[in-house]
């Protein structure tokens, strides 16, 4: 049982949408009613019903997100923050309302702490290029973990190269869990920032970030959390975590691509130099001196992804319509079921066996390359990801070139797990 009770309450012109949203609001919460909100899940691929198990790469979008974007272009399109005319006011309102939705969704203290960016990658680059450049000097250290996505490695590497600083890496065990004792030992006076993922996209591991943040704070070190994989699966609370920066992408949480969020504590953001220069991020410009705008706009130069912000707001409305605890419980059940079923397949090894794990399963098959698995499953209508998942150090740690990865969302079902298992037997038959 997952929980999409009601999705959003803005009035759609599309009658069908309105009808099924109303139905969904009344109906008992079932996986089927969720699936019904995602039009793409109804399509076929290669003549078979689509089984979409690549949610860690990007999620599908519910109709209300698609409608919100369409409505924006049909009814409100114009530039924001700069026009006195009706449409500009409407668009600005919609975009800024979405920011408040984000603020509430992640329980940030203020909307000034919610900065729109292109996605997780840009959020991390922003922090490395501003906070990082300002605070990291020669001989300092930046601590990341062994299970980071390339987007939480390379920006820090660039910074360390520029500043002649050192990148230190928290190791992990064979289950794919970070070694917290080692982490404690890595922290020192030289550590200027810790950047760690909340949930690993390659292994599914849920890291104890709250505890890790507290450890760093005891030594006065700020922490950036890469929340790209966490936000679609678990409730995240900025005040409870007490993180200094938190980065995530809209497209992995049922919203559109091209937009994401950097949460930053106001005290830190206020002292940070601007990231990019341009329109919107300034109060006044003369050739002698420019006065920067207030938070959060200071970090948002240029015309932003307006439809993206509005679409993200709709995605949050959708998620707010669900009981996120029920979603988490359902996904745990799905993960447990898939783990058992996959383990029954001879020659299949699951990579990543953390005690705390999100619904992401990486696996390898004896003698069969993940790429071939992906092609044959695709033929069966099953979409999984194969490759290194932008986490080459993780692959190296486990001594493999690549994995096949099935990642689940609340709209996936046990029947789809069964189709996946059948598909894997087919792979073995074809390549056996």
């Amino acid at each position, binding site marked *: 049982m997952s929980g999409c009770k009601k999705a959003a309450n803005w009035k759609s012109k599309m009658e069908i949408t309105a009808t099924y949203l109303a139905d969904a609001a009344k109906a008992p919460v079932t996986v089927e009613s969720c699936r019904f909100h995602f039009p793409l899940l109804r399509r076929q691929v290669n003549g078979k019903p689509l089984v979409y198990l690549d949610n860690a790469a990007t999620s599908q979008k519910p109709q209300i997100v698609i409608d919100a974007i369409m409505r924006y272009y049909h009814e409100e399109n114009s530039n924001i923050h700069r026009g006195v005319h009706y449409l500009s006011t409407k668009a600005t309102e919609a975009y800024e309302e979405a920011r408040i939705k984000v603020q509430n969704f992640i329980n940030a203290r203020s909307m000034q702490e919610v900065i729109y960016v292109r996605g997780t990658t840009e959020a991390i680059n922003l922090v490395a290029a501003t906070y990082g450049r300002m605070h990291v000097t020669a001989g300092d250290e930046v601590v990341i973990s062994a299970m980071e996505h390339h987007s939480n490695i390379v920006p820090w590497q660039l910074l360390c190269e520029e500043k002649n600083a050192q990148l230190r890496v928290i190791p992990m065990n064979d289950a794919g869990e970070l070694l917290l004792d080692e982490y404690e030992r890595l922290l020192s006076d030289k550590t200027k920032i810790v950047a760690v993922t909340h949930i690993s996209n390659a292994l599914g591991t849920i890291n104890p970030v709250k505890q890790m943040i507290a450890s760093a704070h005891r030594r006065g070190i700020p922490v950036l959390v890469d929340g790209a994989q966490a936000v679609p699966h678990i409730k995240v609370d900025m005040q409870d975590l007490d993180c200094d920066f938190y980065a995530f992408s809209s497209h992995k949480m049922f919203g559109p691509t091209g937009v994401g969020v950097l949460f930053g504590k106001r005290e830190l953001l206020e002292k940070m130099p601007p990231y990019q220069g341009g329109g919107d991020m300034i109060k006044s410009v003369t050739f002698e001196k420019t006065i920067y705008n207030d938070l959060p706009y200071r970090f948002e130069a240029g015309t932003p992804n307006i439809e993206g912000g509005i679409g993200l707001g709709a995605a949050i409305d959708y998620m707010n319509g669900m009981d996120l605890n029920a979603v988490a419980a359902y996904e745990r059940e799905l993960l447990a079921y898939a783990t058992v079923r996959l383990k029954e397949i001879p020659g299949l090894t699951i990579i990543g066996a953390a005690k705390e794990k999100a619904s992401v399963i990486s696996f390898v098959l004896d003698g069969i390359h993940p790429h071939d698995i992906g092609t044959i499953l695709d033929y069966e209508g099953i979409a999984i990801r194969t490759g*290194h998942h932008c986490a080459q150090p993780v692959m190296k740690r486990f001594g493999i*070139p690549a994995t096949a990865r099935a990642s689940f969302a609340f709209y996936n079902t046990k029947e789809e797990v069964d189709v996946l298992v059948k598909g894997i037997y087919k792979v073995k038959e*074809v390549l056996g």
Partner: protein
Amino acid sequence: MSVLKELYQEVILDHNKNPRNFRKMDDATRHVEGYNPLCGDHYTIFLKLDGDIIRDVSFEGSGCAISKSSASVMTSMLKGKTKAEAESYFEDFHKLVKGELNAEQNMDRLGRLAAFAGVSEFPARVKCASLAWHTLHAALHDEGAAISTE
């Protein structure tokens, strides 16, 4: 099943399981690494050239069934051939996997390469099939550094 069977033909499955010339060559005159960063396929092609003649060719490395069998079939065809002949196979192969050369009409010319005709139906796999050939091409031209298909 038919399109899949076209892709994973007997020849390909056989060369994947029992790759030919799958060894390091200590007295190679040239060797070049080929790498596909997207899927991690990684091979080294070894060449022993005698003027214009390819006296020996072998490979090492790992990757998917398509890339490995392609490297194996390639090495099995090129021993004793001239550089120009190898280049001409490379051209044919390239056209074949991109669907620009009809396998049935060119059986004589293609020989075992014809087994890769099915790749043209799988655009995502063209790079896998061509990796070894691109690497060979670089080796023939003595472009010593590692090459990557991305």
